[in-house]
């Protein structure tokens, strides 16, 4: 592989790209589409998994919301009774005032929204700490039976649901991506096919002369790679732009409502390096595969 050969191959590749630019754009678009959807699915799965994981950590706690109008002595009694249940390690209590203050703190600048409330809507809450997660179902049942208990919330269901959703998204994603991959390989191979046909005379001649495979195939493979690389970077740019656009959009008015979630969210910026590597690999892979397919078909080399 000498300099001259390299120069020739790249020059031809770019010439081909320019001559066949409409199909080239279609190819870039299709690669970018696959990768954007892949990135989107990756982000969703990663985030759902992450939320599930974080939630799991609070797994051995059960929140018990107390009904309105239960007085302090009754509450004290409930706390004592809860503590005596089998499998309970400790019982904590959060007053509704405390809960509201905490919420105000979380909401930060937007907390003035809460000032308008005439009545504190939040319930008094017991936090029941379990000795072990295996007691969760038993204890939940018993807690529900107490008078004055409005609701018992245990995260297991939520966590399981999240995991199921993440799984579903993953499976769906795999199929979606496989199909899209096929489509873009098809589009690329058609793009390259047009180039091959455009240059058939020249290639035929090269084959008669006995040009090395590098000369014959090189330009087409480079063409595929270039399409792949451009598609990858397009996809990354769109993902970053899109993600940040929606983040700022959300952090405007609504972020307060999502503030709980916000701390769980894995940003696209965090996995940027991995994304670039994954995207480039796939993009270039699609490009090369597309080239090879049309070369195989139309060049018999």
């Amino acid at each position, binding site marked *: 592989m000498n300099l*001259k050969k390299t120069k*020739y191959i790249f020059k031809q590749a770019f010439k081909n790209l320019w001559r066949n630019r409409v199909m080239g754009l279609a190819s870039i678009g299709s690669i970018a589409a696959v990768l954007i959807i892949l990135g989107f699915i990756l982000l969703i799965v990663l985030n759902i998994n992450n939320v599930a994981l974080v939630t799991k950590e609070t797994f051995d706690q059960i929140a018990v919301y107390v009904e309105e109008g239960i007085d302090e002595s009754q509450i004290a009694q409930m706390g004592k009774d809860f503590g005596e249940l089998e499998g309970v390690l400790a019982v904590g209590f959060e007053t509704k005032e405390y809960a509201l203050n905490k919420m105000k703190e979380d909401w930060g600048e937007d907390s003035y929204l809460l000032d308008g409330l005439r009545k504190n809507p939040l319930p008094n809450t017991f936090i029941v700490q379990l000795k072990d997660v295996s007691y969760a179902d038993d204890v939940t049942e018993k807690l529900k039976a107490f008078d004055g208990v409005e609701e018992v919330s245990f995260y297991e269901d939520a966590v399981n649901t999240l995991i199921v959703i993440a799984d579903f998204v993953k499976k769906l994603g795999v199929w979606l991506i496989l199909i899209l991959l096929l489509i873009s390989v098809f589009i690329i191979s058609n793009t390259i096919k047009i180039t091959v046909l455009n240059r058939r*005379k*020249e290639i*035929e*001649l*090269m*084959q*008669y*002369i*006995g*040009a*090395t*495979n590098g*000369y*014959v195939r090189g330009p087409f493979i480079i063409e595929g790679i270039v399409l792949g690389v451009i598609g990858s970077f397009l996809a990354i740019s769109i993902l970053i732009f899109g993600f940040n656009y929606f983040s700022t959009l959300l952090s405007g008015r609504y972020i307060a409502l999502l503030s709980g979630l916000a701390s769980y969210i894995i940003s696209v910026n965090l996995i940027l390096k991995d994304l670039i590597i994954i995207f480039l690999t796939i993009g270039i892979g699609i490009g090369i595969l597309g080239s090879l397919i049309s070369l195989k078909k139309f060049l018999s*080399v």
Partner: protein
Amino acid sequence: MIEFNNVSKIYKNDFVAVEDISLKIEAGEFLFIVGKSGAGKSTLIKLLLKEINPTEGTIRYKELDVTKIKKRNVAEYRRRIGFVFQDYRLLPKLTVYENIAFAMEMICCSSKNIRREIPIVLSMVGLSDKAKYYPDELSGGEQQRVSIARAIINKPETIIADEPTGNLDIETSAEIMKIFNEINKRGTTVIMATHDRELINRCNRRVVELKSGRIIKDIKVGGCEDEPKED
């Protein structure tokens, strides 16, 4: 040097294009393959160039069994053979000089080498003053000379031409033939398919005649040196 052993080619549509051909060509020979249109001349040449594979039989080229050359080695094999087309096949956007340089670049050759060799072949085919011309600025005969120059630039052992004068008038054809004779005199084996009887009469060599895919005649007569008229 080149040996066809009981070679048959049956195309996909069951058409038997050549049948049971056995033919030995010595190094340095000048061989005409003649026969009516459809007799199988081009098929024979394509077999030798490994553009197609025989249905039966073997083809040897020196130490190689042509039928067994692997795909990735075909290019290497073809470099040993220069090929001249009936329709010249020059690249239209390249000048005469660049067309020849292209053939060198594809295979080897430093720029220095290219600059040194091209003027030599150009003078050999009588086109020294047309190096900067584009193919569409040349006559058919001139284009064929460029094509010959391109075929010999890498100094192949064998030159194969499929009706190189098919598109040319008699005068021009004779000039082209002279170049081939020159090439042959320098030791290069030349194999040429043609149905131009005139050429053969002017320039008697070994003549293999095909009819419906079979060899019906294989005669060898005197060389061009004995040619009575012109020089």
